[in-house]
């Protein structure tokens, strides 16, 4: 129970945070986010290119021998917190977290050598399809995958789609090129416009086995754990931003001749937001270290982060709308953008009810 993982970031992380925050302030103000979220692709290629060239964000956790930054999951956590803070619509999550983690964890050196350098260079956008029931068969040496996977982040734009499919040896990871035969992708219309999802349909689509055949189950669990912790970082960033927006508003907004923040009904709800944010931050930072060090408790920490940070973000988003009053319900105000991200990031990769069940199993309850 008494884990020894750190619960603080290091001073050097502040510098990383500062440069990312400045970059996003310059390149992705809310006006830009709103413009990009109305596009079909859902990201700004120029901003993504600059993010890769100037900050090396796509390369962050790619090992140096593949042209990456060789940083740990803690560093990408800092970046995700900042990206969640402004709801940055970009290939970061799918490419630099999901796909990169899947390839690294597969321990397939050839695949790593082929895919990680272009990912690090920002010339290959990739994603991972984690849901759906797909089947892979081998006919004279080449694999073909058939089946559909929905709710795939950036699934309609990714140039490389990693999918999990069943073979005779069990669940296995496969790489599918964006232009592969029999691959069709359909964008799904999402509640959260700042994060695009797609249904990916494969019909006897040629695919490349990544890692050991049959090793997919453990690999999937590892990818989902990393995904949950990465989401937690985004969630804390968003919740922190909502707290700041709300506190500023209730200090400024006057009713009955007083700043509404002086009323206990408002003040105490802000205090509860603070409690949620600070507690979620402790959970999130600890879970980042847990991924970075591949802790024995990673599964528990990831489930804990998914449950706690999802709920904390959503209640902060609900409080933010309520405390802003009518204005917080309008399209023009940013509160709803965070609310929609909060709700959908609670639902993706398994609802808290599912993760509580899973955690109960892990705890042998």
């Amino acid at each position, binding site marked *: 129970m008494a884990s020894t993982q750190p619960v603080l970031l290091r001073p050097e992380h502040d510098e990383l945070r500062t440069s990312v925050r400045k970059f996003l302030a310059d390149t992705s103000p809310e006006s830009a986010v709103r413009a990009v979220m109305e596009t079909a692709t859902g990201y700004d290629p120029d901003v993504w290119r600059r993010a890769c060239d100037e900050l090396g964000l796509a390369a962050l956790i790619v090992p140096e021998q593949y042209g990456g930054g060789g940083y740990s999951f803690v560093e990408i956590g800092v970046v995700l917190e900042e990206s969640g803070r402004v709801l940055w619509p970009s290939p970061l999550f799918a490419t630099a977290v999901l796909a990169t983690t899947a390839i690294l964890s597969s321990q397939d050196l050839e695949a790593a050598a082929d895919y990680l350098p272009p990912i690090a260079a920002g010339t290959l956008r990739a994603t991972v399809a984690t849901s759906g029931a797909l089947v892979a068969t081998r006919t004279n040496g080449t694999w073909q995958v058939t089946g559909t996977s929905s709710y795939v982040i950036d699934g309609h734009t990714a140039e490389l789609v990693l999918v999990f499919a069943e073979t005779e040896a069990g669940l296995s990871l496969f790489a599918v090129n964006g232009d592969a035969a029999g691959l069709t992708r359909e964008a799904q219309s*999402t509640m959260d416009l700042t994060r695009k*999802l797609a249904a990916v349909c494969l019909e006897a689509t040629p695919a490349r086995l990544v890692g050991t055949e049959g090793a997919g189950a453990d690999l999937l669990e590892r990818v989902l754990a990393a995904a949950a912790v990465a989401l937690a970082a985004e969630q804390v960033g968003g919740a922190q931003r909502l707290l700041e927006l709300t506190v500023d508003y209730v200090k400024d907004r006057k009713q009955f*001749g007083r700043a509404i923040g002086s009323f206990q009904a408002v003040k105490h709800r802000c205090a509860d937001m603070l409690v949620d944010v600070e507690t979620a931050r402790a959970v999130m930072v600890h879970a980042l270290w847990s991924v970075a060090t591949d802790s024995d408790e990673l599964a528990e920490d990831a489930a804990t982060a998914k449950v706690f940070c999802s709920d904390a973000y959503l209640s902060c988003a609900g409080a933010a709308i309520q405390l802003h009053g009518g204005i917080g*319900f309008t*399209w023009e105000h940013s509160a709803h953008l965070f609310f929609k991200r909060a709700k959908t990031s609670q639902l993706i990769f398994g609802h808290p009810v599912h993760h509580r069940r899973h955690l109960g199993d892990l705890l042998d309850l």
Partner: protein
Amino acid sequence: MDDAGAKLVDAALAALLSSVDPHGDPREFLGAQFDAGLAWVSFPVGLGGLDISVEWQTYVNERISAADGPSGFAGNPLGYGMGGPTVLAHGTPQQQERLLRPLFTGEEIWCQLFSEPSAGSDLANVSTRARQEGDEWVIDGQKVWTSWGHVARWGMLLARTDPDVPKHRGLTYFICDMTTPGVEVRPLRQMTGNAEFNEVYFTEARISDSMRLDAIGAGWAVALTTLSNERYMLSEGLSAEPALATAIELWRARADRDSPEAIVLRDRLVDLHVRIRANRLTMRRGDALRDAGDVGPQGSIAKLNTVRLNQAATELCVDLLGEEGMLFGSYSLADAELNDYGYDTPMRAYLRARANSIEGGTSEILHNILGERVLGLPAEPRVDKDISWRVAATH
């Protein structure tokens, strides 16, 4: 409900239904219903009523809808529910004569012009100015959250006529012609993508003094008449029942009903069923008490309950959908494409429900009302009491 009333109502209903075809032109029917005194039965004869107990209205409405007749409420809810009673209570005979009939027939739709950017919970803080020029008033300012504003002919306008007295005392109530030059209505888009509400801008818009309701400076009292009818209307309009019904359908549609996840969600679903049933009984109790002439706190209580329950029930619907709950129809949907409840998907209902705890009195204000007016707890220290509005607004 006495026999005299019964005779009157039945006679009037019989005459109405035999003389006008309920399936015909609704305005013609509603006009005849008004003339028959069956529009607001408690109103005086000649003003759409029969001067009898309000309890008869339910009976009248049931009889007419049983005959497939039209409803005077549906097409003009703010007019029928709030405008009519306010004009009756505070209007001159001429105003009542001019306004009530076309209001009931739906020829003239009404909207409410109370809320402003800086007058939300603190409604008496309105800053929209009305300056008198001869027998006209010149209006400048902005209103917000105006539903029906884009189709309304008349607006119930609360404006400040004297900034130099404490805020509740400097207000006057007007019936504003929305077609007057200087009145501009702009739709206000919500997080659902829809635009139920509007902003209304006044630039030197002119209102004849003959459309002033009650005395100059008496606006707050008139507004309270309107608001008391609003809260009642809302608790009628807002309901968690559709979301509960949807949640039950969605739960039944799940393939994994024996899984631990589903069993946990089922417990949430049944708990909601219990609380929504409890709230339904509370509303019935409130109605029964009102019919017995005893107005209890059930109205505000039901609003608070319904808000929480609808937000919880719409959320449960989304949770029952799981990953599918991440999808959303379209944010640029015409209202026409929406179903009876105004929703195409549980997700739209879920987003829409976020406003329930704000519209028609925030839950915070309702808690104050219950605490102060019902339980008699002392009010907060008021820093803006007895100061002139101009001073309070600028400090």
